[in-house]
């Protein structure tokens, strides 16, 4: 993933206003800023960005916003613990104030400096310009530490709101589940009156021995907003990590998932669904890196792309030398509705061990017209027939989501934004 600096223009020369107060420690930030002086934004010549142009982000007149107080109630799950960030800043008024035992949870901006200063060091500064920007300019984020053996009943909901125009939000979340703990997160991105805002978010996740950690990630920012979202996950032995990435709106959305499976007997589940229309561009890049033996990973991504929208899927699975007895399955399916919709799908397996069971598959097609005719011959309108079929197609991914609040919101978006009235 090394950056190719073909352009002379450096990342620092973007016309962005970067004033504010930042949460990561100053020497790390200095190094990040210095690195930015030598980095440039990726172009389509950069392999990992071949199908996704970031010029719109680079050329936007973005500015870090001052904290803003907004009113309203947010959250998808009535019983969840809610932590709200508006334009990159923690909103204490909108967030939960009490939480169960065994949980340390607070915004980075609210942490003791000594504790905070050790955070953020583990990510490479010279690989991805958006990581480096985030490290240099993160204004806030959520820190969660689940103590060993604690099972946290309510979901923890991270709500990322953007409001106003040309707002740059850099958020850095740190989620840690200690040994034998269990915790579920919802990460929900929305725009209020959001216009041309860019949310650059990184979530560092550590799942310790025998811990179970789940993230339901729902992205529904406005059609002219941008989001680049990265997860860096470190799985310890016997752990279970699941992430469900659902993208239903947003102009340009890029998800980069990097999961390092560092311990044996782990389970890793990655599910994703994207339903796109208009000029949306949604890019899901995933890496599952099996470094040790006896693990299993399952990846299922499905998309329905209509109008002039574009989807990109790139799923990479590494099975390192000596990582024997790995079961790794990956599948990406796409349905294109309309001649202007497009998808670039690339599943990749790199296997260096010899006793593994791995498979990958990618399908892209249009709806089976014979099936549409069959349904119409039973009295369904053409629109209902198609909707029932695409609903069933992506429904397989939605079925993986356990949180009812998240599922309800997905159904609401499908009906409001996509006018689907029948979802299986």
């Amino acid at each position, binding site marked *: 993933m090394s950056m190719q600096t073909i352009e002379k223009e450096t990342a620092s020369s973007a016309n962005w206003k970067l004033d504010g107060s930042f949460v990561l420690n100053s020497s790390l930030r200095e190094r990040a800023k210095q690195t930015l002086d030598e980095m440039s934004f990726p172009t389509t010549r950069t392999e990992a960005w071949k199908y996704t142009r970031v010029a719109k982000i680079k050329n936007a007149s973005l500015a870090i916003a001052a904290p803003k107080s907004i009113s309203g109630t947010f959250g998808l799950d009535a019983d969840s613990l809610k932590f709200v960030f508006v334009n990159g800043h923690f909103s204490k008024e909108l967030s939960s104030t009490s939480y169960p035992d065994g949980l340390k949870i607070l915004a980075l901006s609210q942490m003791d400096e000594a504790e905070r200063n050790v955070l953020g060091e583990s990510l490479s500064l010279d690989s991805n310009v958006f990581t480096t920007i985030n490290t240099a300019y993160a204004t806030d984020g959520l820190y969660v530490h689940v103590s060993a053996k604690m099972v946290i009943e309510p979901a923890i909901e991270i709500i990322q709101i953007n409001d106003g125009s040309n707002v740059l939000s850099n958020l850095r979340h740190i989620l840690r589940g200690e040994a034998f703990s269990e915790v579920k997160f919802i990460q929900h991105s929305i725009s209020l009156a959001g216009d041309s805002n860019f949310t650059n978010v990184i979530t560092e996740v550590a799942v310790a021995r025998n811990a179970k950690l789940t993230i339901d990630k729902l992205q529904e920012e406005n059609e002219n907003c941008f989001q680049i979202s990265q997860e860096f996950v470190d799985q310890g032995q016997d752990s279970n990590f699941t992430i469900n990435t659902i993208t239903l709106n947003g102009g340009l959305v890029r998800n980069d998932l990097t999961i390092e499976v560092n311990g044996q007997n782990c389970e890793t589940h990655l599910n994703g669904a994207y339903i796109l229309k208009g000029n949306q561009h949604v890019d899901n890049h995933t890496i599952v890196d099996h470094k040790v033996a006896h693990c299993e990973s399952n990846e299922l991504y499905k998309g329905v792309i209509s109008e002039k929208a574009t989807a990109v899927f790139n799923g990479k699975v590494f099975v390192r030398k000596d990582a024997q007895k790995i079961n790794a399955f990956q599948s990406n399916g796409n349905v294109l509705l309309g001649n202007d919709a497009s998808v670039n799908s690339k599943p990749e397996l790199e296997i260096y061990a010899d006793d593994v069971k791995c498979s990958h598959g990618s399908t892209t097609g249009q709806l089976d017209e014979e099936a549409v005719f*069959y349904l119409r011959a039973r009295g*369904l309108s053409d629109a209902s027939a198609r909707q029932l079929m695409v609903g069933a197609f992506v429904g397989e991914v939605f079925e993986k989501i356990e949180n009812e609040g998240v599922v309800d919101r997905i159904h609401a978006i499908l009906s409001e934004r996509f006018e689907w009235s029948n979802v*299986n």
Partner: protein
Amino acid sequence: MLKIKNLHASIDGKEILKGLNLEVKAGEVHAIMGPNGAGKSTLASILAGREEYEVTQGEVDFDGQDLLEKGTEDRAREGLFLAFQYPVEIPGVSNVNFLRTALNEIREYRGEQPVSAKEFMQLVKDKSAIVELDPKLASRSVNEGFSGGEKKRNEIFQMAMLDPKLSILDETDSGLDIDALRIVANGVNTLKSDKNATIVITHYQRLLDYIVPDFVHVLYNGQIVKSGPKELALELEEKGYDWIKAEFAE
């Protein structure tokens, strides 16, 4: 109920139906037989509204309405049902979910109230019993992984759920063993009333031992060349289609 007059239709510029006439009244069962390539399935496809076919001449009146003017779904909503020769597998779409949608769209078209959940489940229970279809199959994905016999039973189950005025069974006997044939035929006979009608399209006579027609028509070279009582089917079984071909050679 159905009046077909001088129907001409072609596909890819090739004329398949060449002036077909047929009248079906409520309460009647009509069998349409004929050799391969005579146009039997084309007739079924045109009545159901398959867009690949072009009607070049003639008219089809269905209960006082111009059938050919209507889209496939509106024909179904008016009470026309086609049991497919090759029922389509639709992964992920549950049989019952799609049937509820179909039933409600049909009801909406007719200005009726949607079916209640309770009423619907009772319908599924009652109607699946008619064709001895395991209710578990009724709730699975449409035809996915069904055997040939299960697919055909599912067609008749759907027919029972939608309660059409006119049912067209397109080669429903193909690929059925004798037990499945009996079950399917029994289903069709159970659904028969003096208000609805059935057109059975078949190549072989054996289905007509179970679904006894009032009229048998021989379709050959795009026209109905011979009509008669049920005994005509037996004659065709015995003598084959060669004598028809000889008599009505182009």
